[in-house]
């Protein structure tokens, strides 16, 4: 049985048990290791990817051959876990493996648990006498635990009025997990509310995948970040994992004052604002119509001139929601769009893998002569590669944190 300890080395665990119970997994040092991960938002899923190679002659940490026979692992029935000593960086299903004639190694690819949601639809049994098997019988009013409103209208599986986003997510996800033979995620954290309420309908037989349903909900109002931890617990944080934009929780200030606060590479590109006027469109309320709202911000238009952008927000039928989404988009687009690539060697930063979790925030205070970066940044995504010497470099995609108002701008044509 492999020993898990804080040895500051990278290990891969393999198991047919998604919980990686002690004694149920084997461990080895991977070759050609690279991986990436990202936080879930309204515009990106939270799926991380990993790829590594295994030589046919390699042995695991219990001195047994890793490649123990034909199909010793299989996609979607075997699971990987990447850890740095006793800190799990990511885990999830193996999604493919590959080898070729004459090769003395195989390559393995995996994805994090969130990937499973992109393979799940809300259950639906189309046999006439079973059509209603998976509907919530009654309409939900507000945050009540059991729907007490009118019977759910024909053709819908679920309907809610002014219900908290997280409770809606919990309702849809728990019914999807009821389908049987699913991987069971711990959704106990979805019993807490975020305070953002919306009206919501889900059609019977809707073939949307769960990841897109979650992304849709994550974009309502101030929205939320979401991810699934290595131990299959569904997490969310509203509006962001780092807290709110006015007082973000900072993991580390990168200012060059010490070795661990000095990045290996840092750059800055300013692409200017995306737009100073935004048209948002939603769905139609009647045949041949479409909901639309346009907002602009005069002070920005005075400086940058009027620059237009338009966004299709999809199935939005509520004017208040559409206005909210349009103004939120405008407040984002008004800001100069900065690209700040950051490269870090994690071995130089204490507690790197337990602190620098996806979606958390860092602060960068660096003078690059033509520009001084002096702002908080969300760790939106990262990619990491390990070289032959076992050294890892991490490249971050950062999203500058602006203290935005969601009521930005005024209506204009």
């Amino acid at each position, binding site marked *: 049985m492999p020993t*898990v300890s804080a040895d500051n080395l990278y290990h891969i665990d393999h198991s047919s048990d998604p919980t990686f119970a002690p004694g149920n997994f084997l461990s080895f040092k991977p070759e050609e290791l690279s991986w990436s991960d990202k936080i879930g938002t309204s515009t990106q899923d939270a799926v991380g990817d990993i790829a590594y190679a295994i030589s046919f002659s390699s042995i695991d940490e219990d001195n047994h051959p890793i490649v123990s026979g034909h199909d010793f692992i299989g996609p979607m029935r075997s699971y990987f876990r990447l*850890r740095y000593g*006793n*800190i*799990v*960086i990511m885990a999830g299903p193996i999604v493919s493996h590959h080898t070729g004639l004459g090769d003395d190694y195989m390559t393995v690819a995996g994805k994090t648990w969130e990937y499973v949601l992109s393979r799940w639809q809300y259950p639906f049994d189309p046999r006439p006498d079973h059509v209603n098997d998976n509907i919530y019988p009654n309409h939900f009013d*507000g*945050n009540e635990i059991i729907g007490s409103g009118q019977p759910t209208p024909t053709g819908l599986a679920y309907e809610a009025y002014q219900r908290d986003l*997280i409770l809606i997510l919990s309702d849809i996800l728990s019914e999807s997990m009821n389908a049987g033979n699913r991987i069971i995620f711990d959704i106990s*954290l979805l019993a*807490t*509310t*975020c*305070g*953002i*309420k919306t009206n919501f309908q889900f059609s019977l037989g809707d073939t949307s995948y769960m990841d897109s349903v979650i992304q849709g909900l994550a974009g309502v*109002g*101030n929205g*939320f970040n979401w*991810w699934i*931890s*290595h*131990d299959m*617990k569904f*997490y*969310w*944080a*509203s*509006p*962001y*994992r*780092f*807290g*709110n*934009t*006015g*007082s973000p*929780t900072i993991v580390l200030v990168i200012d060059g004052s010490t070795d661990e606060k000095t990045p290996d590479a840092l750059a800055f590109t300013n692409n200017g604002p995306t737009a100073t006027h935004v048209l948002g469109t939603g769905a139609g309320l009647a045949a041949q119509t479409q909901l639309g709202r346009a907002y602009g911000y005069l002070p920005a238009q005075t400086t940058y001139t009027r620059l237009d952008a338009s966004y299709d927000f999809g199935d939005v039928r509520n004017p208040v929601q559409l206005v909210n989404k349009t103004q939120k988009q405008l407040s984002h687009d008004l800001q100069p769009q900065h690209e700040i690539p950051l490269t870090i060697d994690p071995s130089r930063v204490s507690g790197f*893998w*337990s*602190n620098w*979790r996806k979606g*958390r925030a860092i602060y960068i205070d660096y003078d690059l002569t033509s520009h001084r970066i002096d702002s908080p940044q969300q760790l939106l995504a990262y990619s990491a590669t390990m070289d032959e010497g076992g050294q890892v470099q991490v490249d971050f995609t950062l999203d500058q944190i602006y203290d935005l108002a969601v009521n930005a701008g005024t209506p204009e044509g």
Partner: protein
Amino acid sequence: MPLIPNIGPDGPNQQGFIVPNITPGDSVRVNYVDANTPNSVTTPTANERGPFGDSNTLAIITSIPTGEIEFSVPTGSWGPFDDDDGII
């Protein structure tokens, strides 16, 4: 210990309440008004709302500009407490 009324749960824009008799550096316990029962003040249960919701967690007053207060929160974010550090 003073209470800041009306913090959450309706999103992050909850700064800017006049609270008498506090000065920068003071600690405050943050309670919130339950959206379902206006005019009530509820003490959140532990971990119910992260650093705000944990009734043992304090917000620290950082400054009091005219007419409003600003406070900082030690750790975490809105929503359940972010304890996902990967350590096993």
